[in-house]
């Protein structure tokens, strides 16, 4: 029964994805930058940490626009509320957010990108490496979430 695969329909998913896509496309067409988000979490450390890794050119040259882009993402969420839309409350335990967050931060930086960098920009660039990365984190994501659901935690 294909209907049960989409209990909430698909309209808002497709429209939301299209708006996201327009944002990433606008960044590329105006500035030429692939709009991955995760590098922001490394490049911002270059303001505080003096080690050679964080002082590398790739971070120093991009940290300003990445900060502006991140600010835009936060404001975009705020605009959604201002537009009169509501968001259902979320109840993820703090330990999951903290543990998951550290793994996401470390993993995305070691893996050279996240769901936006590999998932949108990399796949749109037809990068075979990004396809492999997407399959990898989608696979381990599905396995982990399913395991937690099965364990009931």
């Amino acid at each position, binding site marked *: 029964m294909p209907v049960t695969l989409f209990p909430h329909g698909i309209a808002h998913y497709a429209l939301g994805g299209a708006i996201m896509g327009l944002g990433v496309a606008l960044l590329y067409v105006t500035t030429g930058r692939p709009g991955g988000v995760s590098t922001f979490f490394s490049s911002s450390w270059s303001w505080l940490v003096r080690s050679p890794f964080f002082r590398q050119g790739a971070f120093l040259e991009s940290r300003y626009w990445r900060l502006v*882009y991140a600010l835009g993402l936060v404001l975009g969420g705020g605009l959604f509320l201002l537009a009169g*839309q509501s968001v259902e409350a979320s109840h993820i335990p703090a330990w999951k957010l903290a543990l998951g967050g550290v793994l996401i*931060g470390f993993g995305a930086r070691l893996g050279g990108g996240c769901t936006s960098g590999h998932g949108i920009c990399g796949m749109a660039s037809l990068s075979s490496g990004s396809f492999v990365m997407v399959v990898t984190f989608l696979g381990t994501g599905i396995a982990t979430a399913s395991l937690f659901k099965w364990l009931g935690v």
Partner: protein
Amino acid sequence: MKMAQSVSRFDTLATLVSGLLFGFGLAWSTMIRPESVLAFLTLDDLGLLFVLGAAVGINLVVYQLAPRLLGRTLLGSSFEQRPFALDRKALLGGVLFGIGWGICGVCPGPALAGLGAGNADLLIALAGIFAGALAHGLWAGRPASAAG
């Protein structure tokens, strides 16, 4: 000088609006709600395939055609390539990222947009992501003698 300044002002504005659209779309698609992402990862609601499909579909066209048709970007810079080389370390990173994603249903973009939409709990996830990125940088930048 004046020209360079106005270009950089447009650059900042374009970057801000791009992020804003991205964040708004993430909210519209419900991806800013971790429960929604977890329902996808447990295969209870595959709607997120349409989020990815629409976002990738639009950008597939733009990324493939814009450099060929325009030559340079609308603000005059050149189109950048994503620097990425697939190797074992990157794969390990993908595995760790997926595990973290599966634990909490958050990834970097939705963490930022979800905070903007009022979910203050996501500050915990954002702190975790910053800590993870710092740990990666300290580990990756350790002295060459220990690198392997």
